[in-house]
Structure formats: C-alpha cells, structure tokens
C-alpha cells in the first residue's frame, strides 16, 4: 500500500507543478513528504505544500494573495483529477477572488478535464457562465421557494 501511495504522490506532485506553472506563467510548486511529529512509529508522513510565484523568493503559503491561494488550490485539485478523475466534481464560487486573466486560465483548463469528469460549477462570473455546456438559473420566488429554469446565455443579465 505504501508503494501505491508513493507512486501516486510523485505523479500528483509532477502534475501539480505543471498546472501551477501554467497558471502563474512560471514559478514552481511542489508537495513534500514530512515526517509527522507524533512519536508513534507507525504514523505516516504528512504532505506539505510549497508554492512560489515566478520571480519571487518566498515560498511559504502565508504571503500568497487571495487570488494566488485560489489558483494554487485549483492547481492541486486539477492535479488530483488528472491522476484519478472523480466522475462528478462540484465547485461553489471558486472563481470569486480571481481577476479576469485568472478566470480565463481556470475555465480553459477546466474544460480540458471535462472529458473524464463532469463539472457542476456555481458562479457569478460572466466568463465562467459563457464557457458552460449548459446553464441553469435559480431564482427565489416571493413565496421564498427556489425555482430552476434552464437558461440560454442571452437570457442572463449583464453580471457585475
């Protein structure tokens, strides 16, 4: 079981680095196995994350900006999906902190993964909505009950 883990770890780590440099246009990111601090012999190594945007010296996570944190998390998610595609993935406003350029990178990469994974994405962001294969609008009636309507893009109000 250990070799299976180690094998997967290396592939996920490699893909994580690839998605990260693609999102940030350079830099580097990696996963590192760290010995757990528990004294117990059997306890397994944990996984640490290092991420360094291009040109910067620092690689600890505390200095990353809001948008950089989102993109780093999504890079790890996509790395896991590329190794073991979950059939269905639900993402709730993961693009909230992203600027226009990063939304485009996020959506562009997501669409590549949709061959093997079905995505249900909740978003206020026009670029994300425009890239959808299908769109559902949800609205709250004056009876405080939610209703669903299948939308065409043209139906949507200009979002913020």
């Amino acid at each position, binding site marked *: 079981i250990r070799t299976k883990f180690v094998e997967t770890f290396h592939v996920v780590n490699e893909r994580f680095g690839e998605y990260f440099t693609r999102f940030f246009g350079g830099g580097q990111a990696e996963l590192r196995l760290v010995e757990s601090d528990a004294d117990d012999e059997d306890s397994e190594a944990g996984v640490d994350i290092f991420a360094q945007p291009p040109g910067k010296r620092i690689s600890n996570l505390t200095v990353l900006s809001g948008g950089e944190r989102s993109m*780093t998390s999504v890079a790890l998610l996509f790395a896991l999906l590329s190794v073991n595609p979950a059939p269905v993935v639900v993402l709730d406003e993961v693009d909230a902190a992203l600027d226009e350029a990063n939304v485009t990178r996020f959506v562009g990469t997501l669409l590549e993964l949709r061959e093997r994974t079905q995505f249900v994405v*909740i978003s206020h962001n026009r670029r994300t909505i425009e890239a959808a294969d299908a769109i559902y609008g949800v609205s709250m009636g004056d009876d405080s009950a939610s209703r669903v309507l299948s939308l065409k893009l043209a139906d949507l109000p200009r979002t913020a």
Partner: protein
Amino acid sequence: MYLRRLEVHGFKAFADRQRFEFGPGMTVIAGPNGSGKSNVADALRWALGEQSAKQIRARKTEDVIFSGSDKRRQMGLAEVTLYLDNSDGWMPIDFAEVAVTRRAHRSGENEYLINNQHVRLSDVLDLFRRAQVGQNSYAHMSQGLVDEVLALRPQDRRELIEEAA
C-alpha cells in the same frame, strides 16, 4: 457513468419539486444571492450519503426540510434523487440507470432508496465507494473554502493523495 438528473423536493428552499438535467461537460448554476445555488451543492452531497451536518450547512436533520415562509407552510419531508447514467456499467449494479434517493422526516429519520427499493445507508455508501463516486473529498469545494486544502494539516492532505491512489 455520469450524473444525468437531480430532483429536489422539500429540500431546503426547494419547496416545489425542481429538476436539473445534466449533460457531460460543465454545467453552470447562476442566480442572485440567496436564490438557492449552494443549496443545490448541498443536495448533491446529501444524496451521496453525507453524514456531517456541517458540510451541508445544517445543525440537525430537520434543518434540511423546507421550513416554510410567510406564504407557504413548512413541509414534513425533504427528498433528493440522483439519476446516474450507468450504461457503461461503471457502477457495480445491474441497471443502465441508477436512481439514488435520500429522504428526511421531521422526526429525524432518514430513508435511503436505490431504484425505489429501500436500502440501508451502508448499501448506498458501499455502492458509491466501489464506483468511486463522491467519495473523494476533493470532488467538492464549498463556497468561500476554495483554499481550504492549503490550511489542512499535513496528515489530512495525505488522505487526499491516498484517495487518488
């Protein structure tokens, strides 16, 4: 295998029966603040057998049942059904379509059904585990928690890799 349809009735703010048809690829759910988008994500998690109330923003079972409004009475039952297209035989079950239903009563009791047959929770979880559906914690990112993985302890992150193994 893919998710073909989701039906909700009496679950959170979905007082009337509502239906989502999903195709392969990316389906986006949009709408104003408070309209019920995250409730859809909660419905999906709940029907997959989610046992942690916190993960679906509830404190107890009855929080998922429509609590009423000025214009409508509260309901006594919440029901969510996932229709999964199994024509590729991915799920270890002899049906081309698998309907998984979860119900909650005000009494706190939960019911589980597969293709309209009553089953136990363990049957549902077992089916999904063998089909690798919904069990990967990386398959859900809740609102406002996109960077949760960066804040996890190293031991918890290890589990993400183990799930992908």
